[in-house]
């Protein structure tokens, strides 16, 4: 079964560690996303799986086939890995028609003419590009080229599909449609897929699981919800979505509640304790949309984690307002569905929306 295993992948370029003990496994039929800023090692990881880069250490296996094993000096050539890959630039061969592009991998596999034709047509139907089979790539739009690239990667029934930032060259509207479409196709085919992106919206909306990478290391592996709601560290919290980070000292860790002093008049209450002893310096993360903003004279919420604040800036963003407010030492960004008038407001941080995040590893 095409379960992908990546163990202890390490690669250095000169002084720089591009990959540092990267390890994960992808389950059959899963859409698994490598997410991170440029230079984090996600593309190097993908290209190592595809066979276009040689890690210095580690092991890569798909199902029972070992593709790469540094200890055994084993590296299967890229063309013998039977993987489907869609590149960022699509890499649709410009001197071949759509049909010829799809036929090439089948000719390489020495299929008969009739078989080739049947398979190419079947796959073109799948991506709804059948009527364009005689066109050359330059006669197609970006979105159509992407479909051709995907079809070419699927036509020979690869064991695994690799997607290298396939949406980054599409405009915003098209990108959203393409996302849904690819996700649907992947689910229909049940194809194990590794997807590389720097776009957190893409990662969250499409993936079964996400790996967040930074500086060649894995920061966190989890479902989109896990990564978003309980980021493992500061980097993940800041990179995936937007976040308010609050530094403080643990004052008490009893009764399932963690009390964190930001300063003498601002004590933050968290709903979970974790391994945080008294007097430890901690960073608390809370998402802007989890905060509640109230008019200064609104009495509906009081007490825990509720403070007076002054409004610094307000921005209208269509479906919500965004406030930058100062509550004593706390500089907070708040997303509010409602407009709250006045320079003075009240801000409330729900205790169960807070998470203590570790420093970066």
């Amino acid at each position, binding site marked *: 079964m095409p379960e992908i295993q990546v163990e202890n992948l390490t690669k250095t370029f000169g002084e720089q560690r591009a990959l540092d003990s990267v390890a994960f496994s992808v389950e059959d039929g899963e859409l698994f996303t490598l997410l991170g800023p440029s230079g984090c090692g996600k593309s190097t990881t993908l290209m190592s799986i*595809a*066979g*276009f880069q*040689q890690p210095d250490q580690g092991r890569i296996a798909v199902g029972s086939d070992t593709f790469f094993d540094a200890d055994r000096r084993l590296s299967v*050539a*890229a*063309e*013998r*890995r*039977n*993987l*489907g*890959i869609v*590149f*960022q*630039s699509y*890499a*649709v*061969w*410009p*001197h071949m028609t759509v049909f010829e592009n799809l036929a*090439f*991998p*089948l000719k*390489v*596999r*020495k*299929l008969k003419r009739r078989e080739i034709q049947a398979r190419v047509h*079947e796959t073109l*139907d*799948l991506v709804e590009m059948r009527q364009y089979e005689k066109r050359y790539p330059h006669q197609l739009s970006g979105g159509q080229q992407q479909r051709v*690239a995907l079809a*070419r*990667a*699927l036509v*020979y*029934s690869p064991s695994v599909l690799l997607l290298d930032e396939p949406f980054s060259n599409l405009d915003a509207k098209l990108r959203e449609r393409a996302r849904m479409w690819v996700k*649907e*196709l992947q689910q*229909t*085919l*049940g*194809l194990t897929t590794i997807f590389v992106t720097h776009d957190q919206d893409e990662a969250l909306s499409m993936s079964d699981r996400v790996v967040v990478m930074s500086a060649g290391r894995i920061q966190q592996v989890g479902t989109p919800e896990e990564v978003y709601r309980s980021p493992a560290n500061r980097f993940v919290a800041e990179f995936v979505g937007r976040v308010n980070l609050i530094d403080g000292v643990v004052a008490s860790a009893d009764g399932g509640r963690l009390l964190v002093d930001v300063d003498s008049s601002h004590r933050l209450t968290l709903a979970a304790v974790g391994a945080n002893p008294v007097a430890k310096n901690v960073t608390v993360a809370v998402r802007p949309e989890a905060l509640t903003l109230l008019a200064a004279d609104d009495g509906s919420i009081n007490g825990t984690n509720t403070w007076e604040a002054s409004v610094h800036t307000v921005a209208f963003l269509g479906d919500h307002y965004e406030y930058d407010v100062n509550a004593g030492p706390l500089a907070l960004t708040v997303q509010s569905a409602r407009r709250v008038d006045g320079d003075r407001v009240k801000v409330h941080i729900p205790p169960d929306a807070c998470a203590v995040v570790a420093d970066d590893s």
Partner: protein
Amino acid sequence: MTTGTYAAEALPRPRRSWLPAGALQSATWVLVVVLVLGPFVPLLYASLRDRPLYEAGGVFTVDPYRQLFGDSAFWHAWLNTLGFAALVTAGAVVFGAAFAILCGRTDLPGRKAYSRLVLLPILLPSLGMVLGWIVIWGPGGYLTNMFSQRLHIHTLAIDTIPGMALVEGARLLPIAFLTCQAALGRADSALEDAARSAGASPLRVLGSVTIPMLRPALLNAATLIFTLSIAALGIPLLLGTSRNINFVSSYLYNLWTSAAEPDPGSVSAGAMMLLVVATGLLLIRNRLLGAEARFVSVTGRAGRRELLSLGGWGWPLAAVLAIYLVFTTVIPVLGLALMSIVTVLTPLLAPWHLLTWSNWQALGDPVFRRSIENSAIISVAGAILATALVALATLVAHRSRFPLRRTLPFVLLYPRATPGIIIGIGFFWTYLVTGAIGDWFRGSIWGIMLAFVIRNLPFAYVVMYPTLARIGEELDRAGRAAGAGWWMTCRRIVLPLLRPAIFASFVLMFVEILNDYDPAVFLVKPGTEVMGATMLSQFIQGSIGPVSALAMVQVAVTVTVLAVGAKLFKIRAMGGDDA
């Protein structure tokens, strides 16, 4: 969304290619390295023996070096060569850069036409052009006499060092022009716009932004031009002899051919020294350029930029450029044409009284006829061979994981810095020491072809590489992912996309091999004559008319092939920086 069983229909894995990519890559690497660097081994060996390699026996010695270094004429030749090269470099770089700025950044009338015409000298056959200069501007030349006798104006004597520098400088100016043009095209025009917005006048922008930005390009062009002019052979042989001005190249040539006491050992020693100097210059140049920036081609975004207005100076400057082109290119070519159809070219008698077909009829003589035939054969065969070899080597260098791939670009560019006479002498010794195979090469035109091919490999590479660099690597990775091996990916995807560069390389190779001559000087035998070598030897023997006709054949073929090639394949002038 139709079929759910899709992924389950597994296909057979692609079969392994019968030709392992590693074997093909290794073979290419070995072939290129042996052909380019191989000939230097016998050359070094010959320079360290007490007698020529064709004589039996012999022991190791440094005598050839001692003898050469003890000859004051040799050092005098070096002094002449360096002075000449410095003058050539200064002139070509200053005027080449000025022309490039005029054509690229100002509203000079006719700048588009000029930026093409100015390239002509480097494309026309160099030996033929020197002959044209001699016929017109040489001592006793047509216009020299006319100017001095009718107008009492004395033109620059081109048989002096400054005069020879003028001839060579005019030939090499296009290199500086192309390098600067490429640099100007690459430079982000926003840098200049920013200076304009900051309040600088257009002229000030030119002085404080544009020209300083050109500095790396100027240094690059200067080193290349200096290296090339050190190796000039035709000019000192044809122009220097009358006043007994020797360059290193002509000194070595005379030593080689001297009937009295030929000294191949010392010639080899001198060639080694020249090789060391040229290699040193090439290394300096690589350092200056850093990494692969040198290959970046003329791909500047064709952003609309505001051109510097020359105002009232536009037409006068255009006229100056026109006069320059007329005097350095048009007149020598016309002179050759005229020379080929008259018995004598003299201002005393109008040419139409002296018309004759005998010069052209002389081309039917066995030596001339064979030269033309041989040149035609080796130009076609050599261009095919060079293009195929360089295409393969470029793929290995830039699109493979072959462990030694990074050495290939340097090896492919190395002959650019190697004077033609060194290649000639190197191949001479190589054929001599390689037994039956060498004898076969030595006795046939293929020996000369191989030397020409190696000499001109860099041109094919500088045409091929920029195009390859523009073919995204993801295209061949997609081929590999689809299951094709290295060679199949190259054959089915990369090479078809490289086709324009392959044609361009073929056309350029054809012209370069057709017009090359100096390596052949050491390799020709009766029966294996080629046009350039024949022109040189026949001119020295005084048969100027037939040689002019032969030169006109070269010019006509060159111009036709380049024009047709440019039309068919949209060849850009020489591909890139490294003209």
